[in-house]
């Protein structure tokens, strides 16, 4: 079977803030069913890369080809505290299209939030908010899901739920790009690891049969050599 056409192709993506280049030429591809974990030191440009790919920031150079629609989960929720979980999803769904608003109840169910669907988001715990943020990102049934630190601050139950949902998405052929420091928790989800340092993707390697320790050692080696 021929390899699947990539749904995301980034070529020499550059992003400068003033004269300071945060991304200095990032190139990679992402295929359906692939989950690339983006690791790198703080300030390496992981968040900037995700924001550029999502179209929230304009690239200063390079090209980005997207074949499919994009959803994004950031380390902020993009939700309204004064609205209930259901109202938030229906609002963002209406902005996508009429059908997406109808997915609100199904997504609340998937994320285990049906019981609190009519509670205001302002009263939610970090874990509940993050699960709802993922539901918001899934409203348009995206082909590519960009996730920025999706597991930070989650308790065990929420973490297990999020990891389970991400694994399910990958199994259904969605492409995932996950910026995170929580390698061990995501080992069951990711298919490859990319090391972003000094504004460049220094290495992209498949997980293969390697464990957390081997990948971590390789990551340190790449960062030292960058």
């Amino acid at each position, binding site marked *: 079977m021929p390899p699947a056409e990539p749904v995301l192709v980034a070529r020499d993506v550059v992003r400068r803030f003033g004269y300071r280049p945060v991304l200095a030429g990032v190139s990679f591809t992402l295929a359906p069913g692939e989950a690339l974990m983006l690791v790198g030191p703080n300030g390496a440009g992981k968040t900037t890369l995700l924001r550029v790919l999502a179209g929230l920031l304009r690239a200063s150079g390079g090209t980005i080809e997207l074949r499919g629609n994009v959803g994004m989960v950031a380390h902020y929720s993009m939700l309204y505290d004064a609205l209930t979980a259901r109202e938030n999803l229906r609002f963002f769904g209406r902005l*996508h299209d009429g059908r997406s608003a109808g997915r609100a109840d199904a997504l609340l169910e998937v994320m285990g939030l049906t019981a609190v669907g009519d509670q205001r988001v302002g009263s939610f715990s970090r874990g509940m908010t993050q699960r709802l943020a993922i539901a918001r990102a899934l409203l348009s049934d995206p082909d590519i899901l960009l996730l920025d630190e999706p597991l930070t601050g989650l308790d065990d139950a929420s973490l297990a739920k999020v990891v389970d949902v991400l694994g399910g998405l990958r199994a259904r052929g969605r492409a995932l790009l996950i910026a995170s420091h929580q390698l061990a928790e995501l080992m069951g989800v990711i298919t490859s690891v990319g090391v972003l340092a000094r504004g460049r993707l220094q290495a992209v390697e498949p997980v293969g049969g390697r464990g957390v320790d081997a990948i971590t050692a390789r990551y340190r080696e790449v960062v030292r050599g960058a």
Partner: protein
Amino acid sequence: MREILRGALAIAAKDLAIEWRTKTAFVSSMTFAVLVLAVLFFARDPTVVGAVDVAPGSLWVTFTFAAMIGLNRAFLLERENRAMDGILLTPVPRAAVFVGKLLANLVFVGTVEAVSLPLFILFYDVSIGRGLPALVLVIAIATVGFVALGTLLSAMVVRTRFAELMLPLLLLPFLVPPIIGAVQVTASILAHRPLSEVAGWLKLLTAFDIVFLTVCTLLFERTLEE
């Protein structure tokens, strides 16, 4: 066009639902309006200056500053949890965001004006009589222009550190011509003089609306870029 309208209505409905639930801006604006009307009424020496002489100025000072409270809050809703990113990740046209915010602001400011106007008539004991439709028309014409400009500037300043201070600083200089015009027309109506005497001011108010509705709609997209 249909897409813009659909998105705009969803955004306006969401803003008004949040305001209805929290009533933060409305209560602040109304408290402010009542205080300003009362202070300006009692500030004059009634043996020297008649209430009707200061009434037009008092009305427009009240409307302008009470509206500013609502305009200031318009985009602060989106700053919370960076909800604007969530909107920008949907395919909704950028113009829909502006039109939606404008509609919500017009409803908000219109409500504040509708509640303030009877208080104004009561405080200043002005006899409007058959001039009421004309006064309502002038209020509507003047409000559209300054709310359009206020909506644009609110989006511009929301990411600055002193957003609530910056909005009046930027907005008030632009408002000098339309507010003078509105005061002149209001004075004419309260004096039961024909509107034809102030046709020039009415044309200025209409021109202000057309120019700033067009310019603000065209420029709005630029305010969303980081």
